[in-house]
């Protein structure tokens, strides 16, 4: 998955607002080592897409890779 600069520049305000929430909630905050396990099995793809824009590319590639390998993928932090 790749997101171009044009995609980013054309995001709507409502999408940016959601993006900001996801950026804070999913990418930052206190972490107890090894204790974050989130399921992305039923995630709306827009969440994944938006998270790509603000999260690390490596993280999202990991998520998408695991999605392909497992019915119940997990993102371990």
């Amino acid at each position, binding site marked *: 998955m790749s997101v171009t*600069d044009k995609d*980013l*520049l054309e995001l709507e305000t409502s999408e*940016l*607002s959601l993006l*900001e*929430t*996801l950026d*804070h*909630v*999913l*990418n*930052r*905050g*206190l*972490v*107890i080592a090894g*204790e*974050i*396990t*989130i*399921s*992305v*099995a*039923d*995630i*709306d793809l827009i*969440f994944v897409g938006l998270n790509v*824009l*603000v999260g690390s590319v490596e993280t999202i590639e990991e998520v998408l890779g695991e999605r392909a390998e497992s019915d119940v993928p*997990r993102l371990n*932090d």
Partner: protein
Amino acid sequence: MGLYLYCLSDELKAGATLSVTGIAEIAPRVIELGAIKAVVSDVQTHPVRVTKDNVIAHERVIDCVMAQTTPLPFRFGSVVKPDELQAYIASNEDRLRSLLDRVRGAVEMSVKIIWDREAVVGERAKNRPDDLVKAEGAGPGLSFLLAKQKQMEGRQELKIKAGLLASWLDEGLGRLVRDRVVTINPADAMVVRAAHLVERGRVAEYRERVNWLSRERNDLRFLTSGAWPPYSFSHLRS
């Protein structure tokens, strides 16, 4: 079954319940772990699914705490056993209290600067036509090296411009910012991502200042948001 973690605080009362629902529509509660209290929900399911409802519930609970005090938020999806939480607090209590002192009375504000990278690169090419002249008539080896050199110079120049942009923002905000976490990504459209810790009483002044700065640079796009719980200031350095 485990404890879903929302945030930590040293100013909440143990045993209190919050007036909002959390993950899985369960009311969160406050538990005492020495001087530090944790806001948690008892959850049966694991892992926690990243749904819109769950993400909003996580944020809603922490926002409710934010109305009373500034906590240290956990990242979405933190589920632990009670003894694991206790061990975490016990082994990090001093550092957590220090973090709580750092964020006390403040909120996180976010500024992301988006530049038109292609325009920035294009501007450079326009100002450096000599690169093309040099390559004319050169053999494949020299052409390759010149192209490589041009590429490296381009990267370096983007890095410098991105750094200058971050410095401009920082200087423009001055003492309105108590602390900051800034990431610079010259290769990305979102070139600067800044999280600022701002006193609650100075948020309006901060917003006004950011608006003023953004009007100075019409060539850039500014994505501003906040007030947030201090997510970017809630991590223990190892």
